Structures are given as structure tokens and as C-alpha cells.
């Protein structure tokens, strides 16, 4: 089968209807009124179409000109023949952004069209279907075109805004010099320069949820939700709250062009979860917002400090959700205690302070700047206001990770261990400085407590962005190899699914990629109950979505030309074409005139 290098050459086929029209006009030039039509009908009783065909059939010039048009079309389309030894790799990169859910069918059709167009351009073709999701394996890789088409059904775009370059770079490396890559997306802004792409997007009047917070106040649990109008025109929508099969009355919300509106409400009494629903539009991923009333893990804390310091830590720990301060006599998961210079701390999570320096001791204000290490506990905190006598006498052990330095002495460090058993050592005189009044210190302590709390085994409930990490205690994971199941109920009312978490899942457990409720269980024990929420409002903005086909790049064309050879008879066809045109205008034999 030939392949055509210039599809525009098929426009030459328009010469056929033109030819027919010209001959029809000639044919209609004579009309006669007769009285013996019944005799002719008896002689030539075939249908009118048949008589017309008889006219066409006997017109030599017409058929010669038809042949000339077909020959001209053949030559203009530039037919090429595939070399027997040629091979190509065709890679299709499918955009995994969740915005593609609105155009998924169109994108699949575009991919099928590209596969069909690329088929036959080389003797052997390797098909590779990738998604731009770096965590997903290829949808298909192999020589079977039908299998590649079938694999398109498995494509589920779920990601938020992400970098497409790694997937495209991988595609280009797979293709090499023989083949082509296609990026199937919905907007030109996502396409790197010189990348062959097909876009199937179009502007959609989308209004969707852009974020949510669930907060506890004096009256109970409430929620605040942002609704974004992603269009350049005012929009009106209705919204309602669904909980346990019941639905509240629909309320209207009117949004100006591009406006962001906050909705607020309270969880019904006793309700642990619910769904906020916006009147659906063409992009449904951001029209349903599942929400969960957060329930943190429990953490017991014992404070072995006296006086002002004790009251400070009491107040600080009581302000962290899930933390319960118990007496020092009981076994608390987190201890707040003092440590002597020569003492070895007991194992377990702890916040350790140096023993108090006697009031009589000489104290000098340290003026050296406090420098923070690169660590999440101290990230973005301002320590310039910390005043005090500097480092105390506690000694850092091997493996301890400093967090703060003043001069050449560490002020704060972390003792290594599993998350639930880490120790934070505050190596400065707490009472002699302004640490208890410095926001950075309070935040550091709070972050540490929350980290320890998160490392505790047990159940918790929370709201997550779709695809976000779901923290699990290391102890829960260690005890549950092969027993952890994830149950997901889509927000759009789809069927509930349950699957066993693979080792890859457990390496970094993530919330589902689409909105809905999910549960992580270890056997019969619940570990996490969560609400996965549509997270990336940018994906709901379709104002720059468009439809286009960039066409093949110059490299792909060069590779195709290497895999094919031109029609060797082109010059013969050209000569024949000239001959046909001359013959069609040659006098028509006995009639002595030119053919019609």
C-alpha cells in the first residue's frame, strides 16, 4: 500500500465534479419538442439514469479527462512506498491532567486517529502509550496496533497541574531518529515548542469548588468552601449538602466573571462526613466536594516541669488536637522533662530541656546570630528575636541532627529514632531567655508534637487533596504487610471499590486521584478514614482550552521519508497525463469536430 506525502493533492479530485458539471452543461444545451416520444420510449425503454449513463459511457473525451484527473491526483499526492526493512516507533503521551476528563472521549478518538495515520508508514511499528503521570507505567508497549487501541481505555486523567517534560523527554528518547511522538492534551500552553501535539480542548463554562477547610469552633464543626467562576461571564449555580442519603434545600450562588465566592456552613449534629454538591456542568470533577470531620490520633503527654515552664508546656500541649496531658506517673507517649549534662535520656518521644541553672550563676547574653538547619521543623521560622544566654551544657550524641546553631554551639537538635519516639533537645536555658514568648519556638514545639502524634499507631480521620500523601504510622505499616486494604467510594456515586495496597502503594500511600471517600484498613482495624478533595483549581479553568493539530514535526517527516521511497513511475504518469489531455481534445474521428 502506498502512503501519500501530500494529502492536499487529493483536492485535485474536485476536478471530477467540475468535469461532470462542464459535461452536464454541454449535455443540456439542446431541447426539442416532438410528437413521437412514445416511439422512442418503446425503442429505448431503460431508465433515465440508464440513458444518462449511456451518454457518459459513450463520451470518449469525458473518460479521458476523468483518467487525466485521477492521474494528476495520484502525482500530486506524492505516493511513496514503504521500504521492507523500515521500522518506526510511535509514542503517544496522554495528558494525565484531570481537566482532560471533560474531553476524554475526544482525546481517545484523537489518539486512535494518530495511530491510524501512523500505521503503515514503516514495515514494522512499535507502539508506546504513555501518560504524563510519572508514577504510572506505560499503558502499552508493543507491536500490536489493536492492543494499543484497547489500552487507551485504561487511561484515566487524574493529576493536577504537573510537569509534562519528563514524560515527553522519555518519549523522545524512546523514538530516537525513527518515529514520532504525539502529545494528546487540551491546551496549547501545555505543549513545549517543537512538540507534535493534538489538542482536543474547548472553552467550558465551568464553575467548581476551589478549596475547603473544616474547622472546629465553640459551637462545633463547621466548613468553609471556595467556589470559583472560571469563565468570563457571570454564572449562576445551585448548591446543596448531602449527608447520609439526605439532601439539604438547594441554594443559589451567583458569581461574577472570574469571581471567587466563599460558602460556609456547619456539619449536622452527629455527622462525621458529608458532601457539598454544586449543580453539575461539563467538567464534573470539581462539582462534588466530600468533607470529613477531622479526628486526630491520640497522644498522651506527661510534663515533668515545674513552675512557669510547666504551665507553658501544659498550655502548649493542650492546644494541639488529640493531645491529652496525663500525670507524670503514667506512661505517656511524649514526655517533657529536664536532662542533666551527664544523663542519658530514657527512650521514647520527649522534649528535653537542660536542668535549670542556679539564679546565682553568671549569665551573659549571647549576641551571635541563630542559624537554622534545613529541616521541616524549623523551615520558614524567624529566629532573629531569640535572646538568651546561649547554648547550655547538654552534649550532642552521635547521630543527633542539629536544628539551630548559635555561634558554633547547637541550640536545638533531634535525637534520631522512629517518628513516634524522636526526642527534641532544647539546649538552652528556657527560663533565662525569651523562648516562651517567641513565635518560632512555639511553632517548632507544636510541629514536633504533631510529628510525634502522627507517628503514633491508631485511627484518624482527615481531609486530603486528591493524590496527596496519606501518613501512616511506621508501626502500623510494619505490622500489616500485605494486609492493608484501601476502599474508595467515588464522589459521583460510582461503585465502591476495595483493593489490597501493593508494596509500591505502601512506600508512599496516597489519597485517591479523584474526589471521594476512602478508608484504609489493616485487617478489620481502621487506620484512616479520609475525604479526597479536588485540589487543583487551575484544572477547572478552560478559558485557554482549544482544539488544534500541530501536524508532524520535521524530524518525523524526515524519518518517514527515510522509511519510504518515492513512486518510480512518476515521470511516466506525467507523460501519460499530457497524452490523455491531448487525446481528449483531438478531433473525434468521423464526426469531424471536436469531442463534446
Amino acid at each position: 500500500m502506498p502512503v501519500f506525502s501530500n494529502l492536499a493533492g487529493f483536492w485535485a479530485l474536485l476536478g471530477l465534479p467540475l468535469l461532470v458539471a462542464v459535461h452536464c452543461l454541454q449535455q443540456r444545451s439542446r431541447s426539442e419538442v416532438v410528437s413521437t416520444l412514445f416511439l422512442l420510449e418503446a425503442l429505448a425503454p431503460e431508465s433515465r439514469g440508464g440513458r444518462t449513463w449511456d451518454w457518459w459511457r459513450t463520451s470518449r473525451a469525458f473518460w479521458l479527462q476523468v483518467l487525466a484527473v485521477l492521474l494528476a491526483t495520484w502525482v500530486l499526492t506524492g505516493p511513496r512506498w514503504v521500504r521492507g526493512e523500515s521500522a518506526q516507533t510511535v509514542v503517544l503521551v496522554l495528558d494525565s491532567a484531570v481537566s482532560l476528563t471533560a474531553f476524554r472521549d475526544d482525546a481517545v478518538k484523537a489518539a486512535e486517529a494518530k495511530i491510524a495515520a501512523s500505521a503503515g508508514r514503516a514495515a514494522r511499528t512499535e507502539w508506546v502509550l504513555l501518560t504524563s503521570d510519572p508514577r504510572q507505567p506505560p499503558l502499552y508497549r508493543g507491536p500490536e496496533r489493536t492492543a494499543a487501541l484497547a489500552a487507551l481505555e485504561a487511561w484515566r486523567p487524574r493529576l493536577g497541574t504537573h510537569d509534562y517534560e519528563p514524560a515527553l523527554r522519555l518519549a523522545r528518547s524512546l523514538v530516537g531518529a525513527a518515529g514520532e511522538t504525539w502529545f494528546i492534551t487540551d491546551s496549547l500552553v501545555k505543549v513545549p515548542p517543537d512538540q507534535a501535539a493534538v489538542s482536543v480542548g474547548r472553552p467550558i463554562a465551568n464553575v467548581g469548588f476551589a478549596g475547603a477547610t473544616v474547622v472546629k469552633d465553640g459551637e462545633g464543626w463547621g466548613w468553609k468552601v471556595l467556589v470559583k467562576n472560571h469563565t468570563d461571564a457571570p454564572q449562576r449555580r445551585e448548591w446543596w449538602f448531602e449527608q447520609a442519603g439526605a439532601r439539604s434545600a438547594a441554594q443559589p450562588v451567583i458569581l461574577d466573571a472570574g469571581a471567587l465566592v466563599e460558602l460556609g456552613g456547619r456539619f449536622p449534629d452527629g455527622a462525621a462526613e458529608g458532601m457539598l454538591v454544586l449543580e453539575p456542568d461539563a467538567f464534573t470533577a470539581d462539582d462534588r466536594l466530600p468533607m470529613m470531620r477531622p479526628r486526630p490520633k491520640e497522644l498522651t503527654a506527661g510534663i515533668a516541669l515545674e513552675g512557669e515552664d510547666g504551665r507553658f508546656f501544659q498550655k502548649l500541649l493542650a492546644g494541639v488536637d488529640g493531645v491529652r496531658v496525663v500525670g507524670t506517673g503514667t506512661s505517656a507517649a511524649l514526655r517533657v522533662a529536664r536532662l542533666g549534662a551527664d544523663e542519658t535520656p530514657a527512650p521514647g518521644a520527649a522534649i528535653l530541656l537542660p536542668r535549670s541553672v542556679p539564679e546565682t550563676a553568671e549569665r551573659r547574653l549571647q549576641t551571635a546570630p541563630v542559624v537554622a538547619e534545613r529541616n521541616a521543623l524549623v523551615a520558614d521560622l524567624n529566629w532573629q528575636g531569640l535572646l538568651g544566654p546561649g547554648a547550655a551544657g547538654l552534649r550532642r550524641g552521635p547521630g543527633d541532627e542539629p536544628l539551630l546553631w548559635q555561634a558554633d554551639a547547637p541550640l536545638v537538635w533531634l535525637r534520631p529514632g522512629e517518628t513516634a519516639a524522636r526526642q527534641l533537645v532544647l539546649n538552652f536555658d528556657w527560663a533565662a531567655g525569651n523562648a516562651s514568648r517567641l513565635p518560632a519556638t512555639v511553632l517548632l514545639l507544636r510541629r514536633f508534637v504533631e510529628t510525634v502524634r502522627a507517628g503514633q499507631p491508631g485511627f484518624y480521620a482527615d481531609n486530603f487533596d486528591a493524590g496527596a500523601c496519606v501518613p501512616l504510622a511506621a508501626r502500623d505499616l510494619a505490622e500489616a504487610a500485605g494486609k492493608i486494604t484501601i476502599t474508595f467510594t467515588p464522589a459521583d456515586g460510582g461503585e465502591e471499590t476495595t483493593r489490597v495496597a501493593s508494596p509500591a502503594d505502601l512506600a508512599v500511600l496516597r489519597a485517591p486521584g479523584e474526589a471521594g471517600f476512602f478508608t484504609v484498613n489493616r485487617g478489620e482495624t481502621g487506620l484512616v478514614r479520609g475525604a479526597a478533595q479536588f485540589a487543583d483549581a487551575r484544572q477547572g479553568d478552560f478559558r485557554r482550552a482549544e482544539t488544534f493539530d500541530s501536524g508532524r514535526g520535521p524530524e518525523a517527516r524526515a524519518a518517514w521519508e527515510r522509511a519510504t521511497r518515492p513512486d518510480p513511475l512518476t515521470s511516466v504518469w506525467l507523460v501519460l497525463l499530457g497524452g490523455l489531455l491531448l487525446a481528449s481534445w483531438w478531433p473525434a474521428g468521423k464526426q469531424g469536430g471536436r469531442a463534446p
Partner: protein
Amino acid sequence: MTAAPAEILDARRAGLVAAQRYRLPFGRQNWRGQPGGWQGAGIGSSIDFQDHRAYAPGDDPRYIHWSAYARTGQLTMKLYRAEVSPMVDVIADVSGSMTFTSAKVSRLESLLAFCVESADRSGAPVRVHAVNGRQVKMVPVEAVRAGDWRGRIAVTPGPGAAPGALPWRAGAMKIFISDLLYPGDPSGVLAAMAAGGGLSMVLAPALASEAAAPARGNVELVDCESGLKRRQRIDAALAERYREAYARHFALWIEAARRRGVAVARLACEGALVDVLGGEARTSGMVEVNT
């Protein structure tokens, strides 16, 4: 197409001229009808002896053959031939094919004038009808004589079908003026003419141009009666087949007419009527020379 009034007048004048030289064939057979000047088929009061028969009560005693009674003693009646005026029925085909060229219109006009004038000259009562397919309209003879009969009848265009039942009178001289250009079996028309005795004749105006195919090459043919259109490529072979079909069409009419005792004469539309009547019509006895 309609002919100009001057052409109609000329055609009518040609018919009258022809009637001065020729007449309808009244002398060809015995007639029935009103008393007149032509030999009748029945017993009458002319001077031409016909037969004898025995007297029957009620017979006119003026016709008793007294000489025979004297010889035989039996009352015998002398019978004489009747003299009648034959009835003439003229039916003119006014379908589209008879009127779409001025030549045919003129020939129809001249033939109609000839027939009426000839009948008038012979004292024969004449009745004229116009027919177009299934439509038959009575035409006042005075209108024919005045030359404005076309304005007195209203005939709508027909589909070009064969004529329906025609109002022929039994024993009359039946004259059908038609080009016979319609499809179908001629037997129906001819059987109706032949029924009831009398003399039946078909005067068929013929255009020389109709005998050949309409054109050569690719043409759109429009039927003059129904308006139907037909695109046809006419090549030499089809033209030859057309010529043969045209000849066969009239051969069928003539053969069917011969079987029914109906005389058919095809009269060319070209040339003077008096000359045309002197041809086939004269030789086939459809007109007689006035004496």
C-alpha cells in the same frame, strides 16, 4: 403551436378549392338516411327498378305491377330503389400532435373544410366532433363553415392517449382526421368505426419530419402533448430503429384498418390539398372526382 389567422384562412380556402375538384365517395355504396339524391340501400320511390314481390295488404296500390297481374292473375308489387342523403360524421383529432406545427394545423383545417364543403355540395347532413384523448366535443357545423370552430370548443391538453369512444352513427360516412400518433392498439378505434355499417375512412395528415428521428446526439426531448421530458442520446443506430418503428407503426394501422374495412390514407402536410388528395386518397377511392 397555433397557426396564424391568415394561414388558417389559406388552409380553409385550400379545402374549398379541393372540394371543387374532389368529393367524398358518396357513389361508392348504397346509403341509408333521409330522402336525397343518392342511391339508398332500401326500397324507395326513385325511378330505378329494384325487384318484384307479392302484394301485401297496405302496400301502395300505385306500385302494383298491373301487367303482371293481367298475365298471371297474381297481385305483384314493383319495387324501386330509394334515394337518400347519406349522413356524414367527421371527427377531428385536435390533440397536441395535430397542432404543434403550423403545417399540421393548416392541413387539419383544410381537410375539415373539404369534408364539410363536400358534404354540403352533396346535400348530406354532416356532424362534426373534435376529440383529444378521452375528451370529445361537438363542433357546430356552422362554425366550421365560418372558419372559427376552434374558438367554439374548449379542449384541455391531454396525456397523448388513444381516443376514447367516438360518437359514430350507424350507416354514416365516418371520417376520422388524425395523425394516428399515439401508442396502443389501433383495433379499438377502428372497430368502433367499422361497427354499424356505412363507410369508414381515416385521413391521416403526415409530416415528413416526423418520419425521421428528431435529432442526432444528446438532446432533451419534450413530448408535445404531456410535456414529459426525456434525455436521450440519438445515434445513427437509434435513428435507424426509429425510422423503422415509425414505418411499422403506420403499417400496423393500415393492416388493422384493412381487416376492418376501414380505408386509411396518409396525406402529406406539405403541398396543396388538391394535389395531395389526387394521390393516395384518389387511388384508394377515398375521394371521387366531381362530375
